[in-house]
């Protein structure tokens, strides 16, 4: 990778990989940041940190429903999120690649499903 930030996201052996443990890497927001920052073969990096944060924040808010737990007073996420890696019987991604992403967020209270699909297609 050309920069340390994206290396942190995709390389578990990165010297900065310890900043996020395994559980945190399975967080939807981390996977979202990884998809936004690494993206497809034509993805161009940003020199600034804020555009990444803004993009992830807006997408995260679009896909999830949150509510305040009246018992604990804490904000919680009501949605269930799944990362779809393949379909038996149909081709979801043209090639197998770690940068393929298909997120399905289900809001059971509003009965809505939000799907984000992003396939990695080699440039060459």
């Amino acid at each position: 990778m050309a920069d340390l930030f994206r290396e942190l996201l995709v390389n578990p052996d990165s010297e900065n990989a310890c900043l996020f443990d395994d559980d945190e890497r399975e967080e939807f927001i981390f996977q979202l940041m990884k998809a936004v920052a690494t993206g497809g073969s034509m993805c161009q990096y940003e020199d600034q940190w804020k555009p990444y944060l803004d993009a992830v924040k807006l997408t995260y808010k679009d896909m999830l429903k949150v509510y305040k737990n009246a018992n604990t007073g804490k904000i919680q996420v009501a949605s269930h999120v799944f990362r779809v890696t393949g379909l038996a019987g149909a081709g979801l991604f043209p090639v197998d690649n770690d940068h393929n992403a298909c997120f399905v967020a289900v809001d059971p209270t509003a009965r809505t499903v939000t799907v984000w699909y992003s396939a990695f297609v080699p440039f060459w």
Partner: protein
Amino acid sequence: MASESKEGFEPIAAATTVVIEELSSEDASQLVGTEPSQKSSVEFDQLVFAPWICTDPESKEKVRQWYVFSTCVVSFLPLDFDLVDCRNLDPTLSLTKYTFAGAFLDDKKFVAQFLVDLFNSPSLRASMPVATKQSGQTSLAGVVESVQYEVLSTSVTSMTFFDRLVEEGTSRGGFQTLAPFATALLCRDSHRDRLHSQVH
């Protein structure tokens, strides 16, 4: 939809007023009536989801799941998915929202069938093209028999989750001129990174 403050995300105000705590099957049965199985799903929704009874989403979901399980209305017939227009959803990102009929259960078998139904639904196939090897797009073809998926955690409710990148930078002298650390991490290549480390 949620709004965001400095601390993070906040829910809509209407979702915080009334709570049904630890709703038991007996309580829910009283809400529904003597024979919940004889109530239609619509009647149940009108009764239990009336604002004066319960406005807490978590409690609503508990009631819904109790109802579905207790009356055995769970079926694995294909669910109906309808495409709905949604604010801030960017078509260039293939970010699409659908509504579905029926209840959603946090159950492994149900989720597997739910996803199969979703990817077989005409609404999704008409609105979500998939990529081809030739950098083109096509609609999803073939009948989906099963879906390989992973469950992702959603415990994070604030963008402060990424603040550690900034905090880490304060302890690294070599990055101080490029603080916050996240910016320093965005150095274009490792040579530039090493150069900064040598200068400072």
